[in-house]
C-alpha cells in the first residue's frame, strides 16, 4: 500500500500517525499494538531496506526502529538494516559490513540515508521471537515520547533518464530493432 505519509509504498500497516516507533518484522508472526506508527515485514537487503528508509524519513515523528524476529536466511536483511544505520554505505553504494547477499542502496541519495541515520535509533531485537519482550521494548520507546525530528524528508526515487524522440522507433528497447515480422537486430549493426 501507499499513503500520503509513506510515499514509497510497500507491504506495511499504518497505525498512529504521530507514533514514534516503526516495527520491522523478520520471520515472525506478530502484530504490534496500534500505538506504533507503522509496522511491516522486511524481506530483501536492498529494495526492502530502501523502502523502509524512504518511508521512515517521510514521517519525522518516527524516532525508533524496532527490528525483531529471526533474520532472513541468505538475505540477512535485518542485520543489513542495522549495518546501514551504524555504518552507512561505501562509494559503490554497498552497505558497509552488511552480511546480506546483495546489500546495495541504489535508489536513494546519500542525504536521505544520512537523514535516516540521524532521525532514528535502532532497537536491535534480531533473533528475538518472544512477543512479550518485543512489546516491552516497544512500550519503552513510546514512553520516552521523543520530539518530532522536524520536517518530513520526501525521498525521490533515483531514476534512469529516458530520452524518447519521434525519430526513435523503439520497440521493446532502444538497443534492438524489431521489424514488422518480428526479426530482431541490434541497433546500429
Amino acid at each position, binding site marked *: 500500500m501507499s499513503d500520503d505519509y509513506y510515499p514509497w509504498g510497500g507491504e506495511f500497516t499504518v497505525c498512529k500517525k504521530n507514533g514514534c516507533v516503526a516495527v520491522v518484522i523478520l520471520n515472525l508472526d506478530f502484530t504490534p499494538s496500534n500505538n506504533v506508527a507503522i509496522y511491516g515485514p522486511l524481506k530483501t537487503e536492498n529494495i526492502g531496506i530502501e523502502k523502509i528508509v524512504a518511508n521512515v524519513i517521510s514521517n519525522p515523528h518516527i524516532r525508533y526502529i524496532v527490528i525483531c524476529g529471526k533474520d532472513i536466511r541468505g538475505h540477512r536483511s535485518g542485520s543489513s538494516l542495522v549495518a546501514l544505520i551504524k555504518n552507512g554505505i561505501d562509494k559503490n553504494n554497498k552497505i558497509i559490513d552488511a552480511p546480506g547477499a*546483495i546489500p*546495495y542502496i541504489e535508489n536513494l541519495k546519500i542525504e536521505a540515508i544520512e537523514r535516516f541515520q540521524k532521525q532514528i535509533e535502532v532497537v536491535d531485537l534480531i533473533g528475538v521471537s518472544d512477543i512479550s519482550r518485543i512489546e516491552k521494548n516497544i512500550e519503552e520507546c513510546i514512553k520516552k515520547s521523543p520530539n518530532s525530528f522536524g520536517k518530513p524528508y520526501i525521498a525521490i526515487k533515483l531514476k534512469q533518464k529516458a530520452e524518447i524522440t519521434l525519430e526513435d522507433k523503439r520497440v521493446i*528497447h532502444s538497443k534492438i530493432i524489431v521489424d514488422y515480422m518480428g526479426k530482431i537486430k541490434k541497433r546500429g549493426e
Partner: protein
Amino acid sequence: MFSFTKEQKVFDISGIKIGGQPGVFPTVLIGGLFFKGEPDFNSAEEQIKNMLNLSKKLANPSITDFFIRKEEFIENILDFIVKKYPKNHPISIDIIEPDLKIKTLEILDEKKLLSRTIYNSIHVGITPEEQDALKNHTPNAAIIVAFNPKDKSPDGKIEILQNGANLIDTGLLELTNKIGIRNVLIDTAAMAPGDYSGAAIASIPVIKEEFGFPTGCAIHNVVEKSKWLDDFKSARKPVDASSNANIPLFGGDFAIFGPIHNSDIVFPIITWQDILISEYVENYFGVLPDDFHPRRKLI
C-alpha cells in the same frame, strides 16, 4: 514472436537442449521444489513423477529446482536425488546463502552429481570463497541472475553481465567463464510489481540479441508479490501459471516456475504457447522445430 540476428547458443545439459532461435527447442520448465520444514520426500517423489509424466506427454523438458535452505538438509536432499531422481537427468540446485552453497558444492562433487547440476545461482553478491568453491567443484551449468541493484532496466541488466556495473570488478559473464562454467543460462531477475517488474520480460529479447545465451526468468515471483491478487483467490493460480507464457512469447528459453505442484497447469500453457510460436516462426523465418518439439508430437 521473434527471430534473432545474433547466433544463438544451444547447450546440451545432461540430455536436455536449451537455447537457440525461438521455435526450435521447446521451452524448458524448471519446477521449484521447496520443503516447508522437514523435507517430505514421498510427496516430492510424487510431484517429480507427475512433472516427468507431463514432460513425456507434452514434450516440454522438465528440470527440478531443489531449494536447499538448511545445512542439515543437504545430505538428505542429495541422497534423495541419487536414489529416486532419474539417472543422469539434470537438477537445479537453488541456494541463497553463500556458506551453504559452498558446502553443497563439496557434497555434490562427492556424490558425483556435478555433471548434471545447474547451479542456481551466480549473482552480483558472489563471494571470493564461493568463486573458489566453484573452481574446485565446477557444475555443468550455472544460472546467472542479471540483478543490478543500481538499475533494474534491461540496460542495467546488460551492464551487470558485461562489466559488473562498478559493483564488482568484472562482468558476471566473464567471471563465470573464468570459473570454468561454459553452460550459462541467464535469468533476467524478475522484480516485484512497482519495481520495474516488466523489465524481466522485455530484457529477454534484448539480452538474447546482445549475448546469444539461453535466457529466461522466474516471472511467477512477480505474481507472488502481487498482493492485490489476494482479493481474487480463484484467479491466483491461473495468473501465476499463465505468467510463464510471457517467456517463450518474448523469445525466452526457460521458465523457472513454482511451486512444482503447479505443473499440471503450467505445462499445457507453455506447450500451447510453444506450438503457436513454432507455427509462426516456421512460416515467416523458416525455423523448423526440433524432432522432439511439442508441435511434432501433438499436431
